[in-house]
């Protein structure tokens, strides 16, 4: 037999990968930020210790955790306070929360603690300095909180099915990093190996909230009935995550950071291509079958009232069953993973396909997980002023053909406009024909911008066929942002989300899900087309598990059995 090395399959084309509905069907993977954060904690044996737990019987007060890593130490300071029912809101326009908290670099002295006590509960209205790395807040899931507390105080374990439905006691409503309200700029962390990856400090802070939620509920149950109360069982602790409620704010982020999106997506696609190039051996086939079974159960146990998401879950479940059957009849060897993905592409929807892609990434951790350490990018734009305008035209027509295809003379093509509300700058969507404010719209209509630029460029070329890009921009400065962006992004494969974000049939929730899946979210539970609740860290090791052997195998958590 000839000694052939299997070629690395080509990356999937951007026309397929960057489709909005597909991006909106992503799942967590080993490249997700909660996974890489957890690996770092476990592999480096981070030490997390309670240094203050001054809570009353209702769980109100202050808790402080000290974190020691091989590279430094930090403190997480959490303030828990009574929240009047009329103040309870997950939206950015809220001004009071159940808990507010910060991750601080180094020590916290009495003076700083007093300062934090004054400012952290104010969130956006507070002022901070660069010792603070992350600022966040969260609200209780009242239903879970009350049920858990009642059960534990009576000496019972809560029903795990409640956690399958809503997988957390708290859900965060914003997790701020990068210089907001005076906290540390991301640049402060670039040389810090603990938190130099995107959102790693934020994800770690969310993990600490999960730990606090477990300690707090145990403390409250104990206070309620010291004689009968029991601690939450370890299996249920592991099954407990942290929720997050997210609105439109994530959408502008993805459009305004295409270089970061390019890095995330191209890393995922590169990892997938590496996996597809491997010959399937029996052990990994068994592993994939186990992962498929667990993922099916996880999806089956996901609950949502959103009809579209519910139907997609049902479809994915049915397709996973067929896929598992097909896979069971295949022999191991070269090309199996590619044939499996091809089968899914031919026979299943994007939900099933992207779930399969995520699971395939689990099979070769030695190849995939090192890539998770390179998810950051130094974002900058360089205008090529000297590029002949004719070449710029070619670039648009070749690389942005998808954007030129939309018909913007149709009313529905510009149905929506995105804007920032005067109310705490909350991002909102308005209907152009009915609502005021379109003249202040955010520049998220990339396809429309490209078309307008292309039309102006053609006119300029008629007058000055030899013009350079700079000449066009000196005459038409309004297009500089568009030109610089397209020149930069045309050098990359992914990055531009191929959708018209102004169209009537556009679903913003796809954008939210794409970003949240990179965070590592599960249990997507849309509350509207613009608002979603998710769960992070469900199934993750506990603080007490740090230092124990770690298999990095906690994704797609399923309901524990026999805890009641």
């Amino acid at each position, binding site marked *: 037999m000839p000694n052939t090395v299997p070629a690395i399959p080509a990356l999937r084309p951007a026309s397929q990968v960057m489709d909005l509905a597909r991006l909106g069907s992503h799942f967590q993977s080993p490249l997700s930020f909660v996974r890489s954060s957890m690996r770092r904690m476990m592999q480096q044996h981070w030490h997390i210790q309670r240094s203050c737990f001054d809570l009353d019987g209702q769980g109100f007060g202050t808790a402080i955790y000290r974190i020691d890593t091989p590279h430094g130490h930090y403190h997480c300071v959490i303030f828990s306070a009574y929240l009047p029912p009329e103040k309870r809101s*997950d939206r950015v326009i809220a001004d009071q929360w159940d808990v507010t908290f910060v991750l601080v670099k180094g020590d916290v002295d009495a003076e700083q603690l007093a300062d934090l006590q004054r400012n952290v509960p104010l969130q956006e209205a507070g002022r901070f300095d660069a010792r603070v790395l992350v600022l966040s807040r969260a609200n209780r899931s009242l239903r879970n909180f009350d049920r858990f507390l009642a059960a534990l105080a009576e000496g019972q374990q809560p029903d795990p099915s409640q956690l399958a439905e809503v997988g957390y006691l708290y859900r965060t409503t914003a997790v701020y990093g*990068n210089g907001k309200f005076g906290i540390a700029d991301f640049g402060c962390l670039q040389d810090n190996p603990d938190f130099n990856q995107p959102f790693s400090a934020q994800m770690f802070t969310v993990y600490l909230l999960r730990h606090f939620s477990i300690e707090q509920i145990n403390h409250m149950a104990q206070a309620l009935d010291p004689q009968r109360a029991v601690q939450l069982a370890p299996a249920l602790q592991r099954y407990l995550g942290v929720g997050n409620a997210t*609105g439109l704010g994530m959408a502008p982020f993805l459009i305004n950071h295409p270089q970061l999106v390019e890095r995330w997506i191209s890393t995922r696609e590169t990892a997938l291509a590496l996996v597809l190039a491997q010959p399937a051996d029996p052990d990994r086939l068994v592993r994939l079958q186990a992962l498929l079974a667990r993922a099916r159960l996880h999806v089956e146990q996901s609950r949502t009232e959103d009809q579209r998401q519910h139907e997609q879950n049902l479809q994915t479940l049915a397709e996973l069953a067929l896929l598992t059957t097909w896979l069971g009849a295949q022999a191991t060897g070269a090309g199996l993973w590619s044939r499996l993905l091809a089968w899914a592409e031919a026979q299943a929807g994007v939900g099933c396909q992207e779930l399969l892609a995520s699971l395939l990434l689990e099979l070769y951790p030695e190849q995939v997980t090192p890539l998770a350490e390179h998810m950051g990018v130094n974002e900058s734009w360089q205008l090529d002023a000297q590029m002949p305008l004719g070449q710029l035209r070619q670039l648009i027509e070749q690389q942005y053909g998808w954007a030129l295809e939309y018909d913007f003379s149709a009313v529905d093509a510009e149905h929506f406009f995105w*804007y920032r*509300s005067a109310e705490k700058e*909350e991002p909102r969507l308005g209907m152009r024909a009915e609502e005021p404010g379109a003249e202040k719209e955010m520049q998220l209509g990339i396809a429309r911008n490209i078309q307008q630029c292309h039309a102006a460029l053609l006119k300029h070329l008629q007058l000055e066929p030899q013009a350079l890009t700079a000449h066009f921009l*000196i005459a038409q400065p309004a297009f500089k942002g568009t030109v610089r962006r397209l020149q930069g992004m045309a050098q990359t494969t992914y990055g531009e989300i191929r959708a018209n974000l102004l169209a009537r049939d556009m679903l913003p929730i796809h954008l939210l899900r794409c970003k949240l899946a990179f965070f590592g979210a599960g249990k997507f539970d849309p*509350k509207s087309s613009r608002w979603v609740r998710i769960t992070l860290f469900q199934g993750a090791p506990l603080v007490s598990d740090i230092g124990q052997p770690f298999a990095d195998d906690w994704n797609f958590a399923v309901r524990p059995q026999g805890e009641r």
Partner: protein
Amino acid sequence: MRVSLNEIQVMCRKAFEGMGFAPGDCEDAAELVGWLQLQGLDGVGALEKALLYLQAEAAQPYALSHEDDALLVIDAKGQSVLRCAATVVELAVAKAMRSGQAELRIHHCHNRLLLLGYLSRAAVQGLHVQARWEDARQCHLADFTAGIQRPALLSEARPAADTAEQGIRVLFSRHGQTATAPANPQSTLQQGFTVNEHTWQRLKQLAEHILVESTDASRRHGAGGGSDAD
């Protein structure tokens, strides 16, 4: 008050957008203010002085007065260099990269000190950059060694009798060695930046121009928030 670099850049970007800057120019101008601040040059203070002009002027394209392989002459028509000078700097840089040397002259422009941020990018690309301009009292020279972001600044008194030209001349040359630029010291970032509170409030007011008034309907439906009951 003390603010972070990101706050400066975000606030400036929104303020520039509020003043009607074009997409692309907002980001460039905001980055430039942040760069000046990082270099210890009080970018926010320089911006405050520029606000007077920026708010009064109506944006109009610069005019290209002359261009050949080594010279670019621009008429900014009395506008701030923040408006769209970044593009002409890029064109002059490209000329210098190709032919070894190029000169950029911008006539009838304001806020010339602010141009330095754009010139620093050229220096980082490996060009030696010298900018000269004058005001009623002094002649100024900013000299960027190739590879180094921060210029050497020199000012000297000028003859009172002469009329100062409201322009700037910049010479870009590609020769000699390129120094290695030191990274921005993290200590600068960690200390944050002191800005004048009054200036910050002015920027905030300008930034508010990009916000849309909230209505009951937009509050209810615009963000699509779900129930908070649980």
